[in-house]
């Protein structure tokens, strides 16, 4: 790794002083972080791993080619049983997204269609790598695009960037500290009757380790102490999260935002059955139901704070336009994003629709990509994190698709 791991963590003076006397860093420090963080804008990236099919997420039901290509896995027109939910007379969203309709109708949810990148790869792992490093075609980039974004904004507490995932996502790879957690519940040392002693001595050990392992240990204690002082907040406004990992992640993301710990970027990893090589209708329903419920609960829970948030749902690529031999679809190109937030220019399907007739498909098989995802990422980073300069080495993003105000 070419970045210096010791830069990844910084221990503030207060934290170091606390080690010496065997105390947790003072809650004063956390309060000041909270004051600094209150009302600041937040960017949330929800990554659907596996290549989520855009044509059934937001279906061009008015394009007759859609029904020719999709056959048995085409979603029926609006108004039919199991039909899509009409958005604009041309596109309809997947029926499992019905909890999101109020947010589309009041202009806080947008779709961006036919997104992709000229550097097409149909490998999941290369496509995810390129999208998260932000450098399509170049596997040598040492940092992720969200790490570079966080590096450009003030503050360096571990709660500034949070990932709900089992591993550090490539998007956050780099020198900035990141709190990676599957769950923030019971985020504390289990050492009954000797917790203070255990923390003090472990901090001494991890302080002496100047490798990435030591850095991780120091981040761990910083996170433990920040979260211990965060007020618990049950879902508000009657929000009900689904019992699924995306529900638990977004519930905790909302808690962090409400706690005001200075969180500016949140990554939510979703690994479901998006790689729908077979039995796509059932797989999509299984995944989109909790996703729609979780997004709606998140927006409801945040209430007015949703004005500070822009949440992006993305994936690594779309899927073949035509159904394959197993009522599924294979790896493709253009896909569909969703953007949810109080200041999103929603209630519309953005982007430039390339059409589905055979000659317009990419390599005569995939929905073509007409919007570069880097443009949308940069537009959101500009609106939410105030970053004007390019986050994508070797590329100058355009103005974006107008999804932010």
């Amino acid at each position, binding site marked *: 790794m070419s970045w210096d791991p010791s830069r990844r963590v910084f221990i503030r003076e207060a934290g170091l002083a606390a080690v010496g006397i065997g105390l947790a860093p003072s809650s004063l420090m956390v309060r000041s972080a909270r004051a600094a963080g209150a009302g600041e804008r937040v960017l949330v990236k929800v990554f659907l791993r596996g290549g989520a099919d855009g044509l059934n997420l937001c279906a061009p039901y008015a394009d007759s080619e859609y029904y020719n290509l999709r056959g048995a896995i085409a979603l029926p027109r609006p108004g039919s049983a199991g039909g899509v939910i009409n958005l604009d007379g041309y596109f309809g969203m997947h029926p499992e997204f019905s909890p999101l309709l109020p947010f589309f109708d009041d202009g806080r949810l947008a779709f961006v269609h036919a997104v992709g990148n000229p550097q097409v790869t149909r490998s999941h*792992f290369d496509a995810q790598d390129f999208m998260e490093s932000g450098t399509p075609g170049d596997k040598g980039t040492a940092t992720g695009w969200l790490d570079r974004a966080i590096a450009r904004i003030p503050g360096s507490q571990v709660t500034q960037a949070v*990932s709900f995932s089992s*591993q550090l996502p490539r998007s956050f790879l780099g020198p900035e500290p990141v709190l990676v957690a599957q769950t923030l519940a019971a985020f504390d040392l289990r*050492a009954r009757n000797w917790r203070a002693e255990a923390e003090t001595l472990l901090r001494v050990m991890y302080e*002496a380790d100047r490798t990435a392992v030591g850095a991780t240990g120091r*981040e761990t204690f910083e996170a433990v102490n920040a979260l211990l002082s965060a007020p618990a907040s049950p879902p508000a406004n009657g929000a009900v999260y689904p019992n699924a990992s995306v529900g638990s992640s977004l519930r905790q993301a909302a808690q962090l935002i409400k706690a005001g710990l200075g969180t500016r970027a949140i990554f939510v990893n979703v690994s479901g059955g998006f790689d729908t*090589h077979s039995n796509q209708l059932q797989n999509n329903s299984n995944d989109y139901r909790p996703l729609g419920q979780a997004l709606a609960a998140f927006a409801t829970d945040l209430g007015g704070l949703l004005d500070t948030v822009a949440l992006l749902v993305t994936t690594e690529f779309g899927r073949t336009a035509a159904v394959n031999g197993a009522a599924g679809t294979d790896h493709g190109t253009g896909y569909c994003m969703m953007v949810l937030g109080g200041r999103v220019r929603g209630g519309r399907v953005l982007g430039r629709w390339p059409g589905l007739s055979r000659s317009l498909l990419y390599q005569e098989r995939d929905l073509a990509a007409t919007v570069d995802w880097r443009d949308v990422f940069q537009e959101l980073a500009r609106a939410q994190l105030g970053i004007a300069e390019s986050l994508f080495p070797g590329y100058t993003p355009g103005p974006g698709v107008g999804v932010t105000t």
Partner: protein
Amino acid sequence: MPAPDPLGPRVALHLLSRAGYGPRPGEIARVLDHGLTKWIEEQLDPQPDSELSSRLSRFTTLDYTTARILALTNADPRATGVVLDELASAKVIRAVHGRNQLQELLTDFWFNHFNVFVNDGFDRYAITAYERDAIRPHVLGRFRDLLGAASLHPAMLYYLDNYLNTLPRRVGGRVVGGINENQGRELLELHTVGVDAGYAQGDVVEASRVLTGHGIDNLTTSGGYLFRSGSHDTGAKQVFGLSLPSGGGAEEVEKLFDHLAIHPATARFLSKKLAQRFVSDDPPEALVARVADVFLRSGGDLAQVVRGLFGSADFWAEAFVTRKPKTPFEYVVSALRAAGAEVANPAAIRRALADMGQPLYACNPPTGYSNRGADWLNPSSQLARMNFALDLASGAMTGVTANARSLVRDAGGNPDDPRSAAETINRQVFGGTLRAETLSAAARVASTGSVPVAARVGGLLLASPDMQVR
């Protein structure tokens, strides 16, 4: 073996932590007495382990065929839980208690290379047979055999949808079936030549055509492999330098495996992955080239390849000693071994692995879990590791017996004296390699308290940064 001279506890610890899951108490001294080279040769030629067999004898479903597991499940769906419980429990017990450490580690490595996902429908019933029949027998054999066994096992054919990959047919004006590219792509990208080998989308399609017809007999009764010649595409094919004339059948896939298994790109791809496992997250280019050369010269003999790795100067190089962060599984097993733990019921261990981000057999994407230690470093996983260590050493882990007091006492230390306890554990399981700061911090625990001194010292040392690397 060019092991460094002089041989000492540090070198023995390195070997035990790289070619196995780390030392049990006192094992460093025993291996030094026994001879490192001899230990390696024994690991490369695993013999029956009767003690392990008796520990596993209560897990009766480990020997069952997929058909038998399906029959049990059809009679009572609750049977599946027992089957999967036994599979995961056996994996932990083999790693913690087994003598053939290298074989266990390689079984884990190659299963992960040919990953399948336990929660994927039919694979719940086939995964026991998959690991036992397709992976384990071949990990010190030829890669070609491993490739063939894993690729055509029903668990893989299901996981990568190849059982649905068929020649499209026209039935009364409707097209039925068709190519499914999933396994054809991963065969090239993940299982053999690797994504950077230079193949094109056309090669993926052609490989998928070769794979048409290779499927599963019946998903709810036999669960066996079946080739359906009527579903096979008999046209001529060109896959990444291999030409197959028209009229071929089931044998085509064997020719493709022959072609890919000893391809130079495969040798490179696999050698880099093995060097990452055994030497460094970022292995030296020269090492990868040398191992790839052994791979090609031996026709993909995996025992020769591993022997070549252990025989390389880089394997023993100071620059790579205690530098590689452990995966959650490596950490948990090494901590259990270091604590001299007896594992009766691994349920708590399996929960902890899930908390650390590495639930057993449950990696959803076909990449398998990351082979790079650095990818596993994050605060949530780190906290779970510390808590695992503290629970383990204080005897608070259900189903696991570990006694830090007797570990220290049996080795001649004083379990009530913090410094004596810390120094004894350092000698017994760290080969005396602990950082001075780690050792002195552990020796600073209060000599009184409701949790015994040896349990606190042991917990801190197992939770220490020194324990996170190998």
